[in-house]
């Protein structure tokens, strides 16, 4: 119970921010992000672009719950689907060093 509480608390507090070492631009609704450390170009899909934009535009970054709400509104999907997509997307963006997770 304690672990579950701690785990949930920790997860809820995580905020995702743009990796300051990256550069990105949105063209026709798709984000192009360069991770300079790897000199690699990443082209994000529509949901990836939305989450990247949220993370880029908010000084304090974006939480999973905020991302889920944005996905539900933008793509008219149910919350469960949006949460699954957001979790997968954030994990991928962090692995690729496009976003950083804090908290």
């Amino acid at each position, binding site marked *: 119970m304690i672990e579950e509480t701690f785990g949930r608390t920790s997860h809820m507090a995580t905020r995702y921010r743009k990796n300051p070492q990256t*550069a990105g631009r949105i063209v026709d609704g798709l984000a192009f992000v360069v991770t*300079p450390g790897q000199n690699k170009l990443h082209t994000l899909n529509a949901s990836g672009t939305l989450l990247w934009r949220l993370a880029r535009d908010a000084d304090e970054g974006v939480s999973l719950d905020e991302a889920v709400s944005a996905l539900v509104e933008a793509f008219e999907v149910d919350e469960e689907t949006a949460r699954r997509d957001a979790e997968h997307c954030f994990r991928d963006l962090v692995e690729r060093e496009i976003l950083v997770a804090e908290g």
Partner: protein
Amino acid sequence: MHASPAEIGFSIAGVDVLLRGSPGAIPLGGFYAACPLQGRDLGVVIDFRFDSEMTRDREPWPGHPAFSQRLACGDAVELRRFDAEGLVRLPGTRGEPLRARFRAAPKVHAVEAAVRACASMALPPRGALILHASAVEAGGGAHIFAGVSGAGKSTLAHMLESGLPGCRRLSDELTVAAAQGGRWMLHVPPFIGGEGLPHGAESPIATLQFLEKAPIHERRALGAAAATQQLLRHILAYASHPETAGQILDLACALTGEVPCSVLAFRRDLGVANVIGIT
């Protein structure tokens, strides 16, 4: 290879480069003399110091010929490949030059590879990009053909020049696209491997085409996102520094937004000229 003086000045798309080394040590292989220093207000934009080291004259590593790169302290980028290694300091302010110091094998390709890498960092702040692309000039405009190695860039440019009166080959492999005075201009850089090209020439860019080999000729217009994605694959970019990466992205978006872009599928015959529209 010719012995050279201790210092050579030349220009890439109006960006002045000063290449310095010990007397007689700079191996000349490019067409630098065809592009003398411009001496514009900017002054020297790339200050490149070269030290010759015989021990670096060795077999290529896997991944040749690209440099590996990493950010060093400050605004410096470290570049390494089998025959050259150096440190590039990006300008701290707009008036400063990019300063590079390399130790390299006394070979033209080693030195010029380093010069090209430096140019790929110095040109974007001046509104220019180096593209892996060939080009021809016809009807007063330049048609750029970008593609991976083996896509037919050089083949297409040679075929059009030899088969169409009034068509002039501008480049085979590397081309500079620069935003100038509200339009995009192509510049022919003075790099090695460009025999018979009009080094230093410039021409307004009419089209940008991404090559695909195919059994038929076909040209498909690209939207902004698809064109940008294609273009970014064909830019010579050493973008370890986020600011450089951002400048390259901005220029790529501007170029694809202002110049008609398409995929050009072609086979090896002159019928492709009709599809390009330069008959």
